[in-house]
């Protein structure tokens, strides 16, 4: 047998900071996390940005649900809103533009013990990452995806976004955008998302309520949260803000959340549109499907160490 130039090695995990073992800590002895425990870097967003409110409510969710630091997993792509993981004191990843969903799927599918939250903007979700949005929804990978939709590209300073309304004047459409905007609700329902909800940053209680419901959903839960860009698109969502003379119409109480067609109809109106859970059904998750394939396959080999499973295959190749 050839000798490996690089045999398997036990690796130290923390470099020079591995300062001895840490005593176990029983859940009962752990103090509930407060906002100060989960806040990390000071957000780089512009004063007045809608994203602050989403972050504050994420902290509130962590506090309310008594989550522990290490069980919080925050993933994002690229964009203003995608800076999110830096502001949360927890394991997090800031991935490349548009690909937060497949990255998060890798975490979710290989680590079923974690609930992954993905935060991003409309460009990440519906433009560069449009393909991944469709397929992650279709596969029903367990995670919560919160799109902070501001209808504009903010980080790159005012270009047309896939949700910019027709006529929106940006640096790339000085005469006004002419492309039909994407309707995030319709997109999510058509793609097969099993939890589709809409909220807005100016109604904190509603945001929290939707986040909780999304987190409790077993599957791909999608939230569109209107989040105003005060710098480049101020007033975009005034129509959905009663304090600015707009309205906040809730999803009607008699709406059947399992009725796909009714959910689609609810999505017709873009501004102010409806707020609440449009669609919610139970369908096997990708995670559950994979777990089932694994358990079926493991039945035959349960008692065997890995090398003997491989040996069985190799013996057939003699």
């Amino acid at each position, binding site marked *: 047998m050839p000798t*490996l*130039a*690089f*045999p398997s*090695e036990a*690796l*130290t*995990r*923390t*470099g020079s*900071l*591995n*300062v001895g073992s*840490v005593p*176990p*800590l029983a859940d009962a002895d752990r103090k509930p996390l407060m906002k100060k425990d989960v806040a*990390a*870097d000071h957000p780089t967003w512009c004063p007045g940005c809608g994203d602050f409110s989403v972050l504050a409510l994420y902290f509130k969710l962590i506090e309310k649900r008594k989550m*522990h*630091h*290490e*069980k919080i*997993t925050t*993933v994002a792509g690229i964009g203003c809103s995608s800076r999110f*993981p*830096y502001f949360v*004191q927890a*394991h*997090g*990843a*800031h*991935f*490349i533009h548009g690909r937060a969903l*497949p*990255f*998060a*799927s*890798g*975490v979710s*599918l*290989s*680590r079923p*013990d974690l609930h992954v939250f993905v935060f991003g903007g409309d460009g990440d979700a519906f433009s560069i990452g449009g*393909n*991944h949005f469709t*397929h992650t929804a279709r596969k029903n990978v367990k995670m919560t995806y919160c799109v902070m939709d501001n209808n504009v590209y903010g980080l790159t300073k005012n270009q047309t976004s896939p949700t910019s309304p027709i006529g929106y004047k940006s640096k790339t459409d000085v005469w006004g955008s002419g492309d039909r905007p994407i309707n995030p609700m319709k997109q999510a329902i058509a793609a097969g998302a099993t939890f589709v909800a809409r909220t807005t940053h100016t109604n904190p209680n509603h945001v929290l309520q939707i986040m909780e419901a999304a987190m409790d959903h077993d599957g791909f839960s999608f939230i569109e949260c209107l989040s105003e860009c005060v710098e480049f698109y101020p007033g975009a969502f005034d129509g959905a803000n009663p304090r600015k003379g707009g309205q906040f119409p809730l999803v009607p109480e008699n709406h059947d959340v399992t009725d796909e067609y009714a959910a689609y109809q609810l999505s017709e109106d873009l501004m102010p549109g409806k707020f609440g859970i449009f669609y919610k059904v139970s369908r096997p998750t990708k995670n559950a499907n*994979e777990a089932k394939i694994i358990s079926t396959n493991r039945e*035959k080999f349960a008692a065997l*160490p*890995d*090398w*003997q*499973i*491989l*040996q069985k*295959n*190799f013996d*057939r*190749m*003699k």
Partner: protein
Amino acid sequence: MSDTTTAAAQAGGPPQISQISEAVIRIAGNSQDGIQAIGGFLARLAGRSEQEVMTFMTIPSTISGGPSIFQVRIGSGEVLSAGDEADVLLCFYQHSYEGHLGSLKKGGIVLYDSDHVKEIKPENETKYRHIGLPISSLVVEAIGGTGRDKGKNVYALGLIAKMFNLEVPKLHRLLQERFAGKDPKVAETAIAAFNGGYSHTLAAAAELFKFKPGENIGQNQIVMGGNEALAYGLIAAGVRFGAGYPITPWSDIMELLRKELPKYGGSFIQCEDEIASVSMAIGASWGGRVAVTGSSGPGIALKTEAIGWAVMAEVPLVVVDVQRGGPSTGMPTNVEQSDLNIACFGGHGDSPRVVIAPSSVEDCFYTAIEAVNIARKYSTPVIIITDQGIATRIEAFKMPELNKICQDITPDFTPVADHKPYDLAAPDGVTRHLAPGTRVASGKYPIVTGLEHDELGHPTGSPKLHLQMTAKRRNKLRKLGAELPVPAVFGPPEGQVLLISWGSSKGPVEEAVKQARAAGNAVSSLHIKYLNPMPNGLEKIFEGFSHVFVVELNDEGLYGYGQLAALLRARYCDSKIRGITKVDGLTWKVREILDRVNVMTK
């Protein structure tokens, strides 16, 4: 069959049997004829008979139909390449006859299906020994009218078994194993077809052959293809998650992992595209256990941005590139080694990563394990760059000691006191990540990111940190370079010509060295497995030779050197380094290498 002792057939008597130490058999037909299956049986039989074996095949990229060949070289001694010329050509159609007669050595045997091959030029009859049999009709006779083209391959296998006195019980067992689990009638029909072929007297043959006993006596051999070996190597290495998108010739690896990983508690996910698959693999790797993605040429191009992220965030990852002819869609089913540049440099910014190339099927298995270990030890993406020349080739090799080699790389979630993944003061200079789910007692949690960052992973615009972190990412791979084993020269360490090979070219290059030395020429070779970083000390090896020729399957490029030759020239500024390149979509023939050496040393 060089040592064949020719014995004239007795008039009317059975053909003589000659002892041979090796033979190259080429089978040519269409892709739906099951030609690869016969080749596979022959290779497996050779493996079980303690022979060395190496195969070569071409498959058309069309969905069904189109010419297909399988060449198998079986030897009692060491077999380094699939052989330049065939000793026996079996052809099913006129087009296979015409297309491959040129690959037969002068005086070689052409066994053809006279139901389809009708035109034989008289001058060919004097050059080669022709044996025409109505194979298609004989198959119908052997297994009944329903079989038609279906049993033709197995019938032909019977003929070959007869011609080479192969071990019938072992072949019967192989056929039974192959069709196990199907309707028992399928195996019965296959054996009937085989027996039909085997019972043919081959009276038209002047001689029949028998292999001398193999030199690997008592060796427990295993027979598989390069893609299979690579996939099983990843499993042995402890990889339990992968993601990919179908593309030839990478798909075999993903299909195998999809099927096998669940047995080990793992998953392989088919993604919507190449970018999703690399992203998903990186996500899983960050989740705590090195994951794999892979592709071929065009797909690798799509993955480069995400690989750059893994370099920046220093997340371990294994990426398999089964090279094919490029650029763009190129030559999907042909061999080429033209992805070295994208493997080493694909991506924007300074993004050092590891590139390793296996050289044989056996090496695919062990390289996969090493790739995983390097990825973990240096917290880096590792690209395994293989090629069509190994991917679809079947070889026999010694059964690995799986109980010793299989690894457990389960992540460790023990809480830690504190953690800085990008610790600039780490004694080994290497980043270590904590899997999410690990408690950090200090309450300070790290972030992984594509932005330039500080030691905790938080973004920074500090020029000083960018300098330090860039150096950190570079230096850890320099350290790896210093740890790499310096390759041994094949042949004497001094001479006129040093041939350099990488990837699948190793075998043909070493065979070229043997032939050149037998002819009295001072030729040696050096195989480079670790391509980025390269091991240190190669310049000392080059000093022993007047010429250094890098033999690779890619274009000479704008400046006259292949991709590895250009890298070596850039590193060593040595004008005696020159390139021997070609892009005809086929593996190297030993003759081609020697001819080029002759011209370049004149």
